[in-house]
């Protein structure tokens, strides 16, 4: 990679791929949190993080293709995220009420 070319390019703007790479990084962090964290609320936040990462990709693509569709997808994702948060948190409340724990390792009634 030629540093000169790089500088020349960066002078004009940031490559789309950087945004995408950022999106990938954020997504992976979200997945890592999902896998590694035990607190159910945190896990839920990690899901939001992943959604945000995806949204970033959408916006980046929208810019790339000069289309507004990506924005609309993002919009819809947000709507879904809001709905999901409402229901999800309600579920968490109920689960906590019944089991008095937020540790997802102890919530394993899906087994069998």
């Amino acid at each position, binding site marked *: *990679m030629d540093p000169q070319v790089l500088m020349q*390019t960066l002078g004009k*703007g*940031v*490559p*789309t*791929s950087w*945004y*995408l*790479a*950022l*999106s*990938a*990084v*954020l*997504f*992976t*962090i979200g997945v*890592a*949190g999902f*896998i*590694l964290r*035990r*607190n159910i*609320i*945190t896990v839920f*936040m*990690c899901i*939001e993080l992943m959604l*945000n990462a995806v*949204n*970033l990709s959408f*916006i*980046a693509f*929208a*810019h790339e293709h000069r*289309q*507004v*569709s990506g*924005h*609309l997808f*993002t*919009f*819809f994702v*947000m*709507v*879904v995220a*809001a*709905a999901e948060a*409402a*229901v999800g*948190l*309600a*579920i*968490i*409340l*109920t689960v906590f009420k019944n089991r008095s724990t*937020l*540790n997802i*390792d102890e919530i394993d009634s899906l087994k069998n």
Partner: protein
Amino acid sequence: MDLFFFLLFAFIAVACAVSVVLQKHPISCALSLVGTMASLAVLYLLLGAEFIAMVQVIVYAGAIMVLFVFVIMLLNAGEESSKGRSWIAKIAGLPALAALLGILGYAMLTFYPMVGPKASLVHFGDFTGGGAKEIGTALFTEYLLPFEVTSILILIAILGAIVLARKEID
């Protein structure tokens, strides 16, 4: 300037995201997540998505995260215990994550080269189709049906939340 803002907010976003994963206390996590979202809003703005950037701040960082914080407070959630028994997450988790990151990065950089003449660039002001007017037009013409469906979705979500919450009263 583009590069500077990008790098700055990208750094903040990643740092906050890492913080979300690493913080022990849920409140800290939630606040870190707010940071990520705010910085993402700036990035959206850089990409010409004014409307979405606003919504990101108002709905996401505002409403949804408040909901989270509210629940955390309500449940009085403390630091999470390290008690866990997912051996599979320990063994397979990190390699899988690394592989995932590698693949995603590889794919994106293959289709959108980082540098060079082919690389498409993002320059603030290049794209101005993300204003409220354009979004509104598209939303009420081309995307009318999905839009209406979302209203039903939200209605159902509200109902669901009420039903779930009502059980507590019983």
